[in-house]
């Protein structure tokens, strides 16, 4: 028994959502992911288990085979994940269109909270299409199909940013769109080259040699948030609506991780790119005040682990990468949801504006801590059973330095995501804000997320069974648990020291740190120097690129703009003169070619 391509259900669902209201719409947005998940599990899932990879609904296009639905273990895993993520996201966003949540929101919380019906429709439809596009991309069996959904991902998701309906979100969305369209064009370019070289457009492993491979890598890299092209993540996520960010965080980057795993498993450069990604965002994250942006940096950091795992390329590493992607969608979703809840109820996400919310939002605070524990890889939480696979694989393959960096980054995760997020939002100094728990559907969504985090952490076997490669791995041995606990304890100590000495997140006191733990001595210094250097280089590159672009555009405007010689109308006499000049030029050229 096979099933329809999963995106179909979502696209049809989007149409229905656009046309319905109220209870029917709510039933549809919740039903579509659940029905989709069920049909995928019972249909293609069983077929793959029984008889291996399935290529379905193939058709011919100008001599190439399009495969809109390729099901194998890798794509199925992401397929299930995206259904779950979509379900969580829609539960979380269910209150949209009901007017202000609970009617209790303070007057001055800004425009983001009172969501009218029009915006709600836009968000639901966009989210539905977005999730469908992500599924389409994951099940694409060829580069053309992939390209279509790749661009659709960009186009549909940008509406989630624009849904905030402010000048800034509009500008941000536009930049977001441009970089993703560029990514798509690069993907298409690479596909053309690959088709030209191999005669096939199958979306499979691509050797990292020649222009095609590198262009493809760059295309995937933009979506995955590789260093220097990562800015869209930290720019766009904080600009979206509270509910929109939950969707954004789930799909785009994970599709890129999937694509990398599909095409570039075992490509060495990915190890170093991934390591860099785990590493550099930490400095930004520590300095950042907007908590949703902190989560954006954390996102890059987590993807870094996955990218490095894919780069290592062994069965365990790739398994670890995709498993971590699975876990990440859920715990990062949970964190974004908790911050979204805070934002919905208070209208703020700045660390300095918040604090002390645990008094009025105890449930949200608790659930947030669950997410924080998961991302920090506490034993019995999801990241512990997934990230460790990547670390182990790194050691197995003798990438010790990489392993050290990842260890450091893991501590950094605890620092900026595990502790900073819940601490500044719910504890720290009391900001005096008194509010309520968010709407019930938000709490339900967060609870499901938290339960999943724990379930994966406690019963990793279910997840492991879904992984694409066979392996024998047990996360709960003494060595792992002890190592991780040590790391966590020292990480926590570091944070406490920093806060108590009054130097967090202010950076001027770094020299006074009494250092016993390697990362703690290095940390502040790195924050100041390396982080600063990265920021300076980044800014310089950006400024010079923008300078060049600006001057090119200026020149273009002069020659091609309304009154430029290429755009304005010419007098007839000049036109004819021009023809005569060309006639002479052609004549001379041809007589020359002819041999005079």
């Amino acid at each position, binding site marked *: 028994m096979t099933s329809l391509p999963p995106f179909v259900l979502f696209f049809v669902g989007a149409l229905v959502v656009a046309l319905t209201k109220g209870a029917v719409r709510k039933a549809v947005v919740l039903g579509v992911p659940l029905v989709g998940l069920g049909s995928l599990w019972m249909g293609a899932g069983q077929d793959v288990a029984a008889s291996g990879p399935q290529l379905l609904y193939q058709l*011919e*296009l*100008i*001599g190439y085979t399009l495969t809109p639905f390729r099901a194998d273990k890798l794509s199925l895993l992401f397929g299930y994940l995206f259904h779950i993520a979509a379900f969580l996201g829609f539960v979380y966003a269910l209150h949209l269109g009901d007017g202000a949540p609970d009617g209790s929101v303070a007057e001055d919380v800004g425009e983001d909270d009172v969501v009218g019906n029009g915006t709600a429709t836009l968000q639901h439809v966009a989210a539905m299409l977005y999730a469908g596009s992500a599924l389409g991309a994951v099940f694409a069996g060829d580069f*053309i199909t992939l*390209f*279509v959904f790749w*661009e659709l991902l960009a186009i549909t998701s940008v509406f989630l940013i624009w849904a905030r309906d402010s000048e800034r979100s*509009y500008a941000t969305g536009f930049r977001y769109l441009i970089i993703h*369209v*560029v990514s798509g*064009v690069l993907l*298409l*370019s690479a596909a*053309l*080259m690959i*088709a*030209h070289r191999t005669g096939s457009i199958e979306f499979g492993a691509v050797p990292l040699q020649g*222009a095609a491979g590198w262009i493809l890598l760059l295309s995937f890299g933009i979506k995955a948030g590789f260093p220097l092209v990562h800015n869209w993540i930290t720019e766009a996520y904080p600009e979206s609506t509270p509910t929109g960010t939950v969707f954004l965080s789930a799909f785009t980057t994970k599709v890129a991780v999937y694509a990398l795993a599909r095409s570039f498993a075992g490509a060495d450069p990915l190890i170093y790119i991934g390591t860099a990604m785990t590493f550099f965002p930490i400095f930004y994250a520590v300095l950042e005040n907007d908590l949703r942006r902190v989560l954006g940096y954390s996102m890059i950091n987590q993807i870094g682990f996955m990218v490095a795992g894919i780069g290592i390329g062994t069965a365990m590493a790739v398994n670890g990468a995709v498993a971590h992607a699975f876990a990440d969608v859920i715990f990062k979703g949970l964190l974004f949801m908790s911050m979204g809840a805070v934002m919905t109820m208070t209208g703020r996400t700045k660390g300095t504006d918040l604090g002390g919310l645990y008094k009025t939002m105890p449930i949200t605070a608790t659930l947030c801590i669950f997410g924080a524990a998961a991302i920090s890889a506490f034993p019995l939480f999801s990241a512990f059973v997934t990230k460790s696979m990547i670390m182990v694989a790194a050691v197995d393959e003798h990438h010790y330095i990489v392993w050290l960096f990842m260890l450091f980054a893991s501590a950094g995760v605890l620092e900026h995501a595990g502790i900073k997020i819940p601490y500044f939002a719910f504890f720290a100094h009391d900001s005096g804000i008194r509010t309520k728990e968010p709407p019930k559907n938000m709490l339900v969504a967060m609870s499901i997320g938290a339960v999943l985090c724990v379930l994966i952490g406690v019963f990793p076997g279910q997840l492991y069974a879904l992984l694409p490669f066979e392996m024998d791995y047990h996360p709960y041995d003494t060595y792992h648990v002890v190592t991780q606990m040590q790391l966590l304890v020292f990480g926590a100590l570091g944070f406490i020291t920093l806060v108590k000495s009054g130097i967090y997140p202010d950076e001027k006191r770094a020299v006074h740190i009494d250092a016993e733990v390697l990362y703690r001595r290095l940390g502040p210094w790195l924050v100041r120097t390396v982080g600063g250097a990265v920021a300076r280089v980044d800014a310089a590159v950006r400024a010079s690129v923008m300078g060049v672009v600006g001057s090119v555009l200026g020149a*273009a*405007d002069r*020659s*091609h*703009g*309304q009154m*430029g010689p*290429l*755009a304005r*109308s*010419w007098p*007839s006499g000049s*036109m*004819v003169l*021009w*023809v005569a000049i*060309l*006639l002479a030029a*052609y*004549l001379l*050229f*041809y*007589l020359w*070619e*002819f041999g005079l």
Partner: protein
Amino acid sequence: MSEHLPALLVVVPLILAPVAALSNRPRAAFAAAFAGCWWALYASLALLTRVRSEGVISYALGGWAPPYGIELRLDLVNAFVAVTVATIGAVVIPYAWTSVKKEITEDRIPLFYTAFLLMLSGLLGITVTGDVFNVFVFLEISSLSAYSMIALGQDRRALTATFQYLIMGSVGATFIVIGIGFMYVMTGTLNMADLAERLPAVMDNRTIPVAFTFLTVGITLKLALFPLHLWLPNAYTYAPSAVTAFMASTATKVSVYLLLRFFFTIFGFAFAFGQMRLNMVLMPLSLVAILAMSLVAIYEINVKRLLAFSSVAQIGYMVLGISFGSVLGVTAGLLHIFNHALMKGALFMAMGCVMYRVGSVQLSKMAGLGKKMPWTMAAFVGGGLSLIGVPLTVGFISKWYLVQAALEQGNWLVAGLVMIGSLMALVYIWKVVEVAYFQEADSDVEIREAPLSLLIPTWVLVIASFWFGIDASTTAQVATDAAELLLRGGS
């Protein structure tokens, strides 16, 4: 009857022209034009089917054997182009009825349809003939009728635009006839096949490159290859909507066909590309056309003019394909003739709808139209997607072949430039979408959706541009076969 189709394809619309003029009633003239266009569609499709199954069709007019009499000669190449022209004619003519009633005074309407029929038969006549002088004769018919129709535009500037087109078009036609004259001097024949046979014997004479030059300049002027495109933007901008849609999708395409016919069939690939290195001229010019004209389009604020500049860029794609001188390249060029006709027809027709309701196609006047004219703007977006080259549209098929042709020759630079051209198309289409969908409309102006009689033909082309983007097997097959035929240098 069916053996006379090659002649009837041209002369039925031609005789309907004076009939339309004599009827002197808008409705009757329209009926004549409608009949002529649909007859042409039927005849051209029948001919294409026949050519595909039986090979080249030769029709000796007056029963005189070529080269003494005039021959109509249909192979895959011109049958394909004839179908393109006739398809657009058949779709535009029902559109014209409503659109023209609004834009042209009623007493002019019968003569307008007369001119429309003359232009159609002129273009078809150029396409099917196997005689070079006959090409010139029908070129005159189509050009003269085009001038008069453009001049009917509502804006006074239509007159200046027509005047310039008249001057430039006449220069182009004259150059073509001078080139033909030189060829006649050197061979004593006007029949294309006969010319191809007799030219090699006199290739060492310096008159041949002169003929070659005049034909290059004349034809590239007619097809508006940069930098001889100067007549095009204003002509397309100020012509009545239906005329722009028809002209933009057919007139330059037929000139591209002439380029292929003259340089591949008559002069022969080896001479044109080997000795004269025509590609050295065509490739840089077409690349500049793609980049510079797309850039101009980005800055343009009159949407019809924007699309006109985009047309010049798109012509660049066709010529670029041809300039590769390979089967893949020429296939890309031929495919783009058909594909661009569909998408640009749809886009200009959508702008015609806007013109009908808003009375202007200035970008500033289009704010909020996405809500007020949803079907029109959706059609624009559909055509725009194709122009950008999004998969599942015809534009993608063309670009795919084009890039493959570039890669086949290891020409990475050109492949990259084609992609950049697509991005630029994205920008200028987006510019319109942004205004239409994301800007607030003037609330005090009441604008309704365009009437169905305009929307249906527009959407026929939009759907066709998706249909042939999804199932490109037929068009691609015909174009590939035609390209192979051209490169074999004969028929």
